[in-house]
């Protein structure tokens, strides 16, 4: 039961994180132009710097929840995947865990270049793009792995 609860929580927080990082990514790479007021333009027309702290907090929460759930995956989910020779499913998870760890270590810099050092726009944009790609990949991969063999 606690594992189910944590897994659902992991999914809910991933939605919050995806929303925040997608807003920031869109506003950096596809900013709203003056006069645009449709739904998509409003999604792009946010202050990207205002999302930094929320993204960091949500990412850390997601990482901790994932780290707590990981042993259950290792014991309950991965052996059947190995038995069925579904190596690509295992691979999806391996990529997810590795990218997630490296991006975790980038968060202090991500905060610094957004909040303290506005001179380097390319750096800010690159860090946002890496975070965006990682968070989306991790959510999709996690979903696919859970579909193949859940933790229940």
């Amino acid at each position, binding site marked *: 039961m606690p594992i189910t609860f944590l897994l659902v929580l992991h999914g809910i927080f991933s939605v919050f994180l995806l929303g925040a990082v997608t807003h920031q990514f869109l506003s950096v790479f596809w900013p709203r132009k003056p006069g645009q007021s449709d739904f998509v333009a409003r999604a792009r027309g946010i202050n990207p710097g205002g999302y930094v702290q929320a993204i960091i907090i949500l990412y850390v929460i997601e990482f901790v929840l994932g780290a707590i759930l990981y042993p259950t995956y290792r014991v309950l989910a991965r052996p059947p995947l190995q038995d069925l020779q579904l190596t690509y499913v295992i691979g999806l998870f391996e990529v997810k865990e590795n990218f997630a760890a490296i*991006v975790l270590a980038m968060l*202090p810099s991500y905060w610094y270049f957004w909040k303290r050092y506005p001179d380097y726009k390319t750096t800010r944009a690159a860090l946002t793009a890496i975070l965006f790609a990682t968070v989306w990949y991790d959510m999709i991969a996690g979903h696919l792995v859970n579909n193949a063999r859940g933790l229940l």
Partner: protein
Amino acid sequence: MDKIASRAFPAFAIGFAAYYAPAYSFTGATSAFTWPLFTYFPEINEWRWGLVAGNDTIGPPMWWYGWIASAALVGLVCAIIASLLPERATEKLWASSIWIVPIAAFAFLWNWERVWFGL
């Protein structure tokens, strides 16, 4: 604080990524070098120092936590060294390598992980 952070934060991430990618790629049950700081055995809920292989009695090993801990230590050492370097002279280096090195680490890892996908 900001002056140190401008070098220490990127150096931490760079050191972390530069250690983590080969650590994941080259760790095996018989590795000569102990890449993870510790090994966790989820079936028996036990932590052991260094690289320990699993077996039928203690179950599968988890090295992921150990890689993160090792990579964080390497990152900290890099951060300390970087904070001693001149700020102005290395400013652009940190601003570019903070995203180039992790992307290189992703590419390195992906090249290693292709085997899972039969590529």
